[in-house]
């Protein structure tokens, strides 16, 4: 076996071991809620990745540190493996209920149509991929009837996925050296808090855990029951968006809860290094850091625009209602959280908002917020780099050829070569993003029943999947989304979380090795 394969196998094995640990820990939730029938399912689900992960990690213990190429493949395969094995709790618990596998002493799980959807491996994989990538699109018809164990597993997968499974693995199975840095960067992160990557990821977890406690108590004070507050704080902060209720946040129909969740989602959309500096007492980073400054500018401007669009179109009767729903849905989309307050049960569903309002929300999902946070999308820094780059190139014409000009981004004065590299990287990712968005739209248009959904609905749903947002115009569901659509969305969510390039690198490597081309 080649050295590169050994390195990849060893590190994917370590990721699987970390995943197994999460599953074993989640069995405690089954015990706490008296869902004893779920314990064997959770333990069995954990044993498979543990056995495979331990075998791989031990067999190739001495493999070399990963390089950039290996890091990308490890990230792509690691995330895909996590999604595959993370689907086992859904699958096993659903089959436990379906076949009445649990002995009488462990109690019987409720057999519901919602749970039965997970007897399909594709639905279980969809839910798992959606969870770990922090997307939040779901195969669940009614979250409230799910066993608490699965409600927790969905939440926990988003919470961990928000920070990153590789960041988790690096923090738990700390391994100093260049290998950790390569893996850290391959998971769409670059900024460091400390010189050491292990210290950096541990600080990221420190901040994330503290903010989670604050968010839980904040939501509970706003009026949520504590179980709901725990789950929504975790999925809100990780900008995942899974809910434990059927109508997402609209269930509570409370303006206080809506407004309380806005800062929780915003906290998740600001880069961890900035949070660290703020906790150190340097509040100036709220406006001095380019991305953080633009998070606030962009959220304010977008919310006001959406408010104006839904109010002037008569979607809502009062300016306050329009502001409440416009603000929440724009922040939810732009932070890539995907909590929904605009649903039919309480007001006007997103899928029935005017087309221009839906497209505004779609635009928010495409851009996302700050790189280095838990959000998806293209990221603000790339959008800003592209805008500055275009401005720089156009103004170039007005200067003499001999003029030495520097592009300034986030306080850094870039040389011509550096500027070209950064603009090129941002442009490549943006172009790839739109290419796969269009591919997704084509696949969905072909797969969905003709005339059932409008083009803006389809664009909205694909952008939501690829931006790891989770807002739905009503297309995603176990029955409503055809198999081709589910497979396409699995791919969209996977590439969206890893910012496309690592997945393309992995596919190219696999096809070359497999002799599919050349």
């Amino acid at each position, binding site marked *: 076996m080649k050295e590169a394969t050994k390195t990849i196998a060893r590190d994917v094995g370590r990721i699987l071991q970390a995943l197994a640990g999460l599953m074993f820990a989640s069995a405690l939730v089954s015990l706490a809620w008296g869902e004893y029938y779920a314990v064997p399912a959770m333990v069995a689900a954990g044993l498979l990745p543990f056995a495979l992960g331990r075998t791989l990690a031990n067999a190739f213990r001495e493999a070399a540190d990963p390089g950039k190429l290996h890091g990308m493949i490890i990230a792509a395969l690691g995330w895909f493996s996590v999604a595959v094995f993370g689907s086992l709790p859904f699958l096993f618990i659903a089959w436990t209920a379906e076949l009445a596998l649990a002995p009488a002493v462990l109690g019987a799980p409720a057999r519901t149509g919602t749970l039965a959807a997970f007897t399909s491996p594709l639905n279980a994989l969809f839910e798992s991929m959606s969870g770990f990538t922090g997307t939040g699109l779901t195969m669940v018809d009614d979250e409230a009837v799910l066993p608490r164990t699965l409600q927790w597993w969905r939440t926990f997968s988003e919470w961990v996925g928000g920070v990153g499974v590789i960041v988790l693995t690096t923090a738990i199975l700390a391994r100093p050296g260049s290998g950790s840095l390569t893996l850290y960067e391959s998971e769409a992160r670059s900024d460091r808090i400390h010189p050491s990557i292990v210290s950096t990821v*541990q600080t990221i977890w*420190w901040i994330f855990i503290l903010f*989670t*406690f604050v968010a839980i*108590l904040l939501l*509970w*004070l706003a009026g949520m029951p504590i179980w709901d507050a*725990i789950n929504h704080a975790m999925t809100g902060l990780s900008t995942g968006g899974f809910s434990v209720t059927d109508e997402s946040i609209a269930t509570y129909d409370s303006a206080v809860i809506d407004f309380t969740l806005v800062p929780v989602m915003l906290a998740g959309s600001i880069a961890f290094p900035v949070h660290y500096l703020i906790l*150190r*007492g340097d509040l100036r980073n709220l406006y001095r850091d380019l991305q953080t400054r633009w998070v606030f500018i962009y959220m304010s401007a977008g919310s006001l625009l959406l408010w104006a669009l839904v109010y002037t179109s008569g979607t809502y009767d009062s300016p306050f209602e329009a502001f409440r729903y416009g603000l929440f849905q724009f922040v939810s989309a732009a932070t890539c959280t995907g909590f929904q307050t605009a649903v039919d049960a309480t007001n006007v569903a997103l899928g029935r908002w005017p087309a221009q309002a839906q497209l505004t929300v779609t635009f928010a999902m495409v851009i996302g917020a700050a790189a280095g946070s838990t959000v998806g999308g293209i990221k603000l820094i790339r959008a800003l780099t592209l805008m500055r780059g275009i401005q720089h190139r156009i103004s170039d014409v007005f200067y003499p050829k001999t003029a030495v000009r520097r592009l300034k981004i986030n306080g850094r004065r870039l040389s011509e070569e550096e500027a070209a590299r950064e603009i090129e990287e941002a442009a490549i990712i943006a172009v790839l993003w739109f290419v796969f968005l269009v591919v997704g739209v084509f696949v969905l248009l072909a797969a969905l029943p003709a005339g059932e959904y409008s083009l803006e609905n389809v664009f909205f749903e694909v952008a939501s999947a690829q931006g790891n947002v989770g807002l739905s115009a009503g297309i995603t569901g176990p029955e409503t989304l055809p198999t081709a659509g589910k497979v396409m969305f699995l791919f969209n969510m996977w590439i969206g979380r890893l910012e496309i390039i690592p997945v393309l690198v992995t596919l190219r490597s696999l096809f070359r090795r497999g002799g599919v081309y050349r």
Partner: protein
Amino acid sequence: MRARLSLVVDWVSETGPNDPVFDSLLLTGPLVVALVVVLGRSPITTAVAAAYVGFFAAYVPYKALQ
């Protein structure tokens, strides 16, 4: 058990922004949530939770002003 607790305390004090107040908030966070879970909504638990959130919200700007 004591060794494990000590490991957690060491981890918390070594990894954060080197501030004993934030470290204490992180360490007491699970206890406050557990208190709310066990006792439910009451004036006491509401006051404890509000104090926790309020302390965090007030300490961040206070630290910046120092």
